[in-house]
C-alpha cells in the first residue's frame, strides 16, 4: 500500500537477513536484495491494484510479523495435534513456524532417487539445482507479496522427482504455526521430471494465534508428467494467510489442483498456471467463510500453446458477515489455437450480510478456441428442497443437507482417503449439525 508502513518490515530486515538460509550464495543474496527493493518501494499490495481490488491487507501492515527462531515451539505441539493433521500413508514434512522440523517429519522409505528436503538444506547441499527453479515459475514483479516472500523466506521444501517415477504415496507438507505475531514465510519448489507422477498435499494449520503465513510454491510439471496438488487451508481464525502457487506445465503435462480454503481471518490464494502444447489443468476450489472471514482466491490459467485443456470449478459457501472473492482469469494467447477451457464459480450465500465478489475474466487472442465460463451467486435451489421434503425430510434439515452437499461435491473429488476424511471433518465442523448425520456418510 504505502512504502511508509511497509518500512517497518523493511527496517527490521537487516536484523533478519543474517538468519536466512543461503547467505553464502551470491545469486540468492542478489535475488533477495532485488525483492527487498521492490517490496520497499511498493509495500504490500493495494486495493488500487486490479488483482487486489477486493482484498484489503492493510491490517498486515499495521502489525509487524517477524520470523520466529528455529525450534522455539516444538514443545507447544502435542502428539494429538500432530496426529490430527499429519496424514497416515504419506511422506510427511512438517514446517513449524516456517522452519523444517526433522523430529516431526516422516520420510522413511522414500525412493533414493527422489529428493525431499528442506529448502535450507537444499540451498546448502545443491544450490545449483535450486537456482534452476527458484523464481522461475513466478518472479518478484508478480506482486509485492511474492517479493516479500522471496526476501523473507526462512525455509520451505524442495521436492524433485526423476523422470518416469510414479510416487506410490503422496507427500504432505504440513505448515504448522504456533506463535502470535510470527511470520512463517516459506518457499517450496516441486519438480516432476518427464512422465513422473506425484501427489502433494499442502496443509496449513495453526494454534489459536494471530500470525502471518506467507507461502510461495513453485511447481514444474515436466513433459507428460502428472502433478496433483491439494491445499487444505485451516489456519487459525485469527491468522493471515497468503499462499501463492505458480505452475509451469511442459507439453502434455497434467496439473490438478484442489484448493480448500477454510481458515484464516484473511486468506488469499493465488493459483497461476502456464500451459504448454496440449497440456491440461484442472483447478477445483471450495471456500467456506463464517463470521468475519475474508477469503480470496485468485486463479490464472495461461494458455500459451495450442490444444490445451483447462477445467475450473470454484464453489463458495458464505455465512454471517463473511466475504468470498473469486477472480478467475483465463488467457488464451494468439498461438494457443484449439484451446478448450471451462471456468465456473458458484456461490451460496447463507446470510444477508455475507458477500461474494466474483470476477471471471476471459482474454482470448486466438480465433479457434472453445471457452466457456459461468458464475452464480445465490441461495439453495427450491426444487431440490421440495424433492427432499417429498422424501420425508423437513425443510430445515433439507436446507442444511443441501448446503453440505454443495460443499461436499468438492470434497468428494479428493482421491486420498485420509485427506478426504480430514477435509470432510473440516466441512462438517463449519456447518450446522442438524441435517447431516456423520455416521451415515
Amino acid at each position, binding site marked *: 500500500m504505502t512504502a511508509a508502513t511497509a518500512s517497518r518490515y523493511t527496517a527490521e530486515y537487516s536484523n533478519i537477513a543474517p538468519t536466512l538460509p543461503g547467505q553464502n550464495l551470491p545469486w540468492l543474496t542478489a535475488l533477495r536484495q532485488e525483492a527487498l527493493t521492490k517490496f520497499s518501494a511498493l509495500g504490500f499490495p493495494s486495493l488500487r491494484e486490479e488483482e487486489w481490488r477486493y482484498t484489503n491487507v492493510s491490517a498486515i501492515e499495521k502489525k509487524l510479523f517477524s520470523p520466529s527462531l528455529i525450534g522455539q515451539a516444538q514443545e507447544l505441539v502435542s502428539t494429538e495435534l500432530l496426529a490430527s493433521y499429519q496424514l497416515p500413508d504419506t511422506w510427511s514434512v512438517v514446517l513449524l513456524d516456517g522452519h523444517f522440523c526433522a523430529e516431526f517429519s516422516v520420510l522413511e522409505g522414500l525412493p533414493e532417487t527422489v529428493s525431499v528436503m528442506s529448502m535450507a538444506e537444499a540451498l546448502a547441499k545443491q544450490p545449483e539445482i535450486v537456482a534452476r527453479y527458484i523464481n522461475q515459475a513466478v518472479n518478484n514483479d508478480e506482486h509485492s507479496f511474492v517479493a516479500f516472500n522471496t526476501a523473507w523466506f526462512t525455509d520451505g521444501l524442495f521436492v524433485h522427482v526423476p523422470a518416469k517415477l510414479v510416487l506410490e504415496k503422496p507427500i504432505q507438507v504440513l505448515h504448522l504455526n504456533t506463535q502470535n505475531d510470527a511470520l512463517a514465510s516459506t518457499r517450496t519448489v516441486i519438480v516432476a521430471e518427464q512422465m513422473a507422477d506425484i501427489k502433494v498435499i499442502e496443509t496449513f494449520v495453526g494454534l489459536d494465534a494471530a500470525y502471518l503465513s506467507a507461502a510461495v510454491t513453485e511447481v514444474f510439471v515436466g513433459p507428460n508428467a502428472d502433478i496433483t496438488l491439494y491445499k487444505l487451508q485451516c489456519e487459525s481464525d485469527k491468522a493471515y494467510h497468503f499462499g501463492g502457487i505458480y505452475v509451469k506445465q511442459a507439453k502434455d503435462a497434467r496439473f490438478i489442483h484442489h484448493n480448500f480454503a477454510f481458515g484464516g481471518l484473511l486468506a488469499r490464494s493465488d493459483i497461476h498456471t502456464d500451459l504448454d502444447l496440449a497440456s491440461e489443468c484442472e483447478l477445483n476450489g471450495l471456500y467456506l467463510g463464517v463470521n468475519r472471514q475474508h477469503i480470496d482466491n485468485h486463479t490464472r490459467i495461461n494458455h500459451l500453446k495450442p490444444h490445451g485443456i483447462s477445467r475450473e470449478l470454484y464453489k463458495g459457501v458464505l455465512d454471517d458477515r463473511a466475504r468470498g472473492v473469486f477472480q478467475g482469469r483465463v488467457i488464451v494467447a494468439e498461438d494457443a489455437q484449439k484451446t478448450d477451457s471451462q471456468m465456473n464459480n458458484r456461490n451460496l450465500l447463507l446470510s444477508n450480510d455475507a458477500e461474494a465478489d466474483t470476477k471471471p475474466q476471459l482474454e482470448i487472442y486466438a480465433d479457434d478456441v472453445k471457452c466457456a465460463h459461468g458464475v452464480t451467486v445465490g441461495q439453495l435451489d427450491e426444487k431440490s428442497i421440495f424433492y427432499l421434503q417429498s422424501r420425508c*425430510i423437513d425443510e430445515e434439515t433439507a436446507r442444511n443437507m443441501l448446503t453440505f452437499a454443495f460443499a461436499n461435491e468438492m470434497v468428494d473429488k479428493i482421491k486420498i482417503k485420509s485427506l478426504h476424511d480430514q477435509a470432510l471433518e473440516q466441512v462438517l465442523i463449519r456447518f450446522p449439525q442438524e441435517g447431516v448425520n456423520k455416521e451415515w456418510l
Partner: protein
Amino acid sequence: MLSIKNLTVNVNDKQILKGINLEIKPGEIHAIMGPNGSGKSTLSHILSGKAGYTVTGGSVTYQGKDLLEMAPEIRAREGVFLAFQYPVEIPGVSNIYLLKAALNSIRKHHGQPEVDAMDFLTLVKGKVRLLEMDEKFLYRAVNEGFSGGEKKRNEILQMAILEPKLCILDETDSGLDIDALKVVAEGVNSLRAADRSFVMVTHYQRLLDYIKPDFVHVLANGQIVKSGGAELALELEEKGYSWLEDSKAAV
C-alpha cells in the same frame, strides 16, 4: 385411502383445476390421463404439497386426515410418495444417505428407533437387485449424471424402500426405453398390495400395458371429463383426446 372433493386450484390467479372429484380405495390403481396442459401435473403436485399452488376450494382427505393441511414431509412420512417426472440431481449426497435419512424420518414420525445399519443394508440391497440396478448406484450422488431410465428406476427404488401407502407416479414412462419401462413396471407391480394405492399420471397409454389400472380418468381443462376401466385407455390411444376435451365434467 384418498378422497378428493370438488378441488379447485389456482396458479398465479389462473384456475388450473376446476372441481376435481376422485375416490381411491386401498389397493386400487388409478390412471389419470390427459393432454398436455390439462392439469395432470398440478394434481400430482398438489397432492404431494409442492409450493406455488393456491387451493381455492374443495378438500383432499387422506386416510381420514386433511392432506392439504400437512407439510410435504409430513405427507411423505404418512405414506404419500411422489415419483417425480424430473427427479432432481443432488451432487454431494449419496443415494444411500438419502434413503437412510428418509427411512429414519418415517420411523421417527411413527415413534420407532433408527433402522439398524445391517438390516438397512440388507433391505436396500434386496430392493436394488429387484430393480436390476448395480449396487454401486447406492454410493453415487443422488441422480447425478444418471440417464433418464436410471433416474426413474431410482424413484421406484426409493418407493420400494420407503413402502408408502399412496404412490403418485408423475409421467413415469417419459424418457424410458422399452426395457427400462418393463423394469420400472415390474418394480411397481411387485409393490402392489391390498393396502397400497397408486395414482399414475400419464399422457400415453404405453405404461398401462405393463401396469394394469383398475380405473382410468381423463383430465381435460382442469376437470375429469370421463372415467372408466382399463379399456378406456385403449380407446384414448386409438382416438386421441380431442373427442373428450370439449366435454363437460363427468358426474
